[in-house]
């Protein structure tokens, strides 16, 4: 976990260096990006929503289906699961665990980048955006359990719904002051879930222990 953080800090530093460079040398406004207003509105019957509202769920479905196919049908995906389950046994049957780990990192990074691309259409893009939001992403992945795609899907859904819809629901009960604590909601969801189900929700349908 710490080496991930080290890489993260280096990338964060260079990202900021780059944006400083663009700002000071080329006088480009490279600190804040607002793409929300550039998004295309799509009319859906009586209402209209922004295109990202359609694209993001589609991408989600596509990613989950592809990941499922990848991990259950392809040789590489199966060997990846084997390498995580039991590295020694996997390497006996000719799998290179190091290579599979590297590929897993590649896929993880690619998916995180994809989500970042969609995210800039929803929130203001700035260099520390990831740093501030990463805690609720952690919460989502942990709630579902670390070894299951569907766990992650459910966890992300729970945390996201809790953070936005849940807060509005609570606000109608207790008043608007609760909105200030919005970032705390996913963490609370996570803490409660883990105290009930220490290995994440994926255990419920037979995920890995």
């Amino acid at each position, binding site marked *: 976990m710490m*080496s991930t953080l080290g890489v993260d800090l280096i990338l964060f530093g260079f990202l900021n260096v780059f944006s400083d460079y663009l700002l*000071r040398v080329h006088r480009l406004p490279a600190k804040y990006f607002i793409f929300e207003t550039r998004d295309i509105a799509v009319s859906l019957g009586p209402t209209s929503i922004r295109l990202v509202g359609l694209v993001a769920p589609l991408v989600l479905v596509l990613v989950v289906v592809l990941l499922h196919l990848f991990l259950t049908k392809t040789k590489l995906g199966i060997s990846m699961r084997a390498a995580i389950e039991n590295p020694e046994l996997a390497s006996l049957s000719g799998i290179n665990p190091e290579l599979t780990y590297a590929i897993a990192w590649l896929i993880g990074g690619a998916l995180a980048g994809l989500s970042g691309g969609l995210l800039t259409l929803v929130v203001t893009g700035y260099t520390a955006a990831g740093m501030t939001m990463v805690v609720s992403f952690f919460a989502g992945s942990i709630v579902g359990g670390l070894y299951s795609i569907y766990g992650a899907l459910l966890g992300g859904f729970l945390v996201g719904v809790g953070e936005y819809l849940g807060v509005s629901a609570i606000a109608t009960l207790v008043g608007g002051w609760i909105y200030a604590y919005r970032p705390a909601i996913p963490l609370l969801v996570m803490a409660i879930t883990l105290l009930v189900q220490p290995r994440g929700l994926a255990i419920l349908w037979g995920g890995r222990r």
Partner: protein
Amino acid sequence: MIELPPTVLQIILNFSIGLIVTVSLNIEVGFLNLPQFGRLLAVLTGAIVAAAVPGRILAAYMGLPWGADYAYHLYNFGIVAQINNMLCENPGLSLGILVFTLMLAALVGGAVGYLCAYPALRLKEAYLGITLLAFGELLMTIAWNYDPLVGGTMGVWVVDPFRFVGAGGTRFTFAALFIFMVAIVVYVYAELLARSPFGRVLKAVRDAEVAASVYGKDIVKIRTQTLIIGGSIAAVAGALWAFFTGSMKAATYTRLTWTFWPWAFMMLGGIGNNLGILVGVFLYTISRTAIILYKGSISAIIPIDPEWLEYIMIGLVIVAVVLFRPQGIIPEKPTLALPKQRLKAVLEELGKEK
């Protein structure tokens, strides 16, 4: 009284605070291998205690508003200024308040550590690490938004128990030296802890949990005690920092500064080894101060904010340590149960018998 130049003060201060936090982290991570990614929680607790409690007590004593009004930013400045004027006249009271607050912070930090033991006994590795991290963020969100506690987004001023020695440089010198003293005490305590039977039990549990429990060691109790000790030391660091800076704003306490940097200090120096931690904190403090000091000349050469160099440096060090020297600069050595001289004497005696 002597006045030290600001750069030296900066180094002493950062070194001392860093040492206290990292030592507390090392007791939990190095000795017991708990994934403590929530160091921020205890540090912030200490800072909140220092910001909220002594000021209120003194305000109530002086007949000033001490309830929710105390933390309201329009009144707070005036109230704290009056209290500080009073504290200037009363060195004894100042020191009393200082010691009392540090003890209270340690107590509350220990209580927070005890509360953390509940998840810490149930969750494993990454789950626990992220839960603790989330607890820290949770407390930060609450302190940031709940105004009556420590002023919310406006922050509060913290009463200044160091002011009685004089204003300006003298005050900062005294405060920094006091914090340095506390850091030395904490370091010596951690070193004694590492050499004590309790420290050896911690390392035994870390290296072979099943074996330790077979020998009758109560793992639950040991983990709880370790979390309490670590939490109280970290809370003292938070309280000292709040006193030194003289103001408290929850959002300035980030997980980067109070959790990940101590982790980096610890990894560089050597996990599980107090001397290594001392060296790690010292090296980081020197290089960070150098970056801050030469900020102007760096940004004159390359068109960036040197702050980012700090991030890159710390990230590079973490990655380099993980890749090339996972045991740190000074690797952990097994601690001796008896002084070296006596062990040698015993060995010689055994040799004679043979």
